[in-house]
């Protein structure tokens, strides 16, 4: 049985009501590590969106045309992570070749996209929710944009927080988590718009 939601609804829901970061807690590590400055946050967000959209498409094909026909569904974790790792490697090589400046800016965080749980998470959700190809791509693209929106918003807030008097023990990750919690609260207000299972 396939999911009955239409692709545009999945797209908007994955940005606002089911934000991959604020509702599903995926991609937290890089969320807290990179979100100090707005430009690098947006750069990483774009890279993640691109990788996420392409890997959901690739993994959809791998899952439905390779794993299911050969009864290898249990190997999906390994298959997905190999596809993601290979794709990130490819993106890394292309960026290095054609835009060395962007390559330097992204630095070590580019290979780390491989272990960004948001990407594997989107691929696994796609299987669990039984999306078809178009729905999966919409979900991957929307999920990436939603992640970028959240990380860019946090980066903007953290730039302002530099001047704020924060209790010593709460500096760094503590205050970022509280800000993220407040953002999650405000994103919950979107849930009246669209519902996604």
């Amino acid at each position, binding site marked *: 049985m396939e999911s009955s939601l239409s692709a545009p609804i999945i797209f908007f829901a994955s940005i606002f009501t089911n934000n991959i970061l604020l509702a599903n807690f995926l991609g937290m590590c890089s969320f807290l590590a990179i979100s100090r400055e707005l430009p690098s946050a947006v750069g990483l967000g774009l890279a993640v969106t691109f990788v996420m959209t392409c890997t959901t498409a690739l993994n959809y094909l791998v899952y439905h045309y390779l794993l299911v026909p050969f009864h290898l569904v249990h190997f999906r974790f390994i298959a997905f992570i190999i596809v993601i790792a290979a794709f990130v490697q490819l993106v890394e090589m292309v960026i290095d070749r054609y835009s060395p400046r962007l390559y330097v800016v992204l630095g070590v965080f580019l290979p780390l996209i*491989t272990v960004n749980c948001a990407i594997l998470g989107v691929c696994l959700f796609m299987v669990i929710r039984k999306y078809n190809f178009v729905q999966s791509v919409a979900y991957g693209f929307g999920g990436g944009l939603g992640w970028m929106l959240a990380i860019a918003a946090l980066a903007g807030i953290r730039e302002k927080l530099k001047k704020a008097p924060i209790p010593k023990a709460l500096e760094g990750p503590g205050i970022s988590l509280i800000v993220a919690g407040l953002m999650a609260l405000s994103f919950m207000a979107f849930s009246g718009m669209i519902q996604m299972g």
Partner: protein
Amino acid sequence: MAKTQVRTLFRKGVWEENPVFRQILGICSALAVTNLMTNTLIMGLGLIFVTAMSSATVSALRKITPERIRMMVQVLIIASYVMMVDIFLKAYLPDISEALGPYVGLIITNCIIMGRCEGFARNNPVWPAFLDGIASGVGYALVLLIIATVRELLGFGTLFGKPLMPSTWVPWTIMIMAPAGFFMLAVFIWIAYTLEHKKTQGKP
């Protein structure tokens, strides 16, 4: 292996270098599964198993793994153990497997495991690596259980599904939703850092 060394490993894993509130690693799942104690416990046990076994395996293979592809090898080792956990849960605890959803698979990308493999197992013999994996896993599971206790008790009024609060208690729904996960972890980090701060002030 000396007893003191074991104790040092565990003290580091559980408190001094606790993966969750010291190094802020692997918090995705820490936030996602902590609204129910049962799920949290299973997740914690799964993570302890995967961390310990993959640390031991990475350590056993450390001399024959080519440096250039070691990340790939580590990810594949981790993924294999996660697969075992997933199949085990599907077979024996189907309800919990259903409730945890994609988060079991996401143990693969849990940075704690990769961190232990890269930071410890790669340069140490099998037995210490195995213990180090268990220690980190226990540190992770303990923090999660503490957070889950508060969230389930206030959010559902239950612990492990058993009602504990008096019947006049009105469940605090926000505790089981996403924002409270962030707030709870932030408060936890706050308390841990404050304690540490006091300790360092005490002895100049």
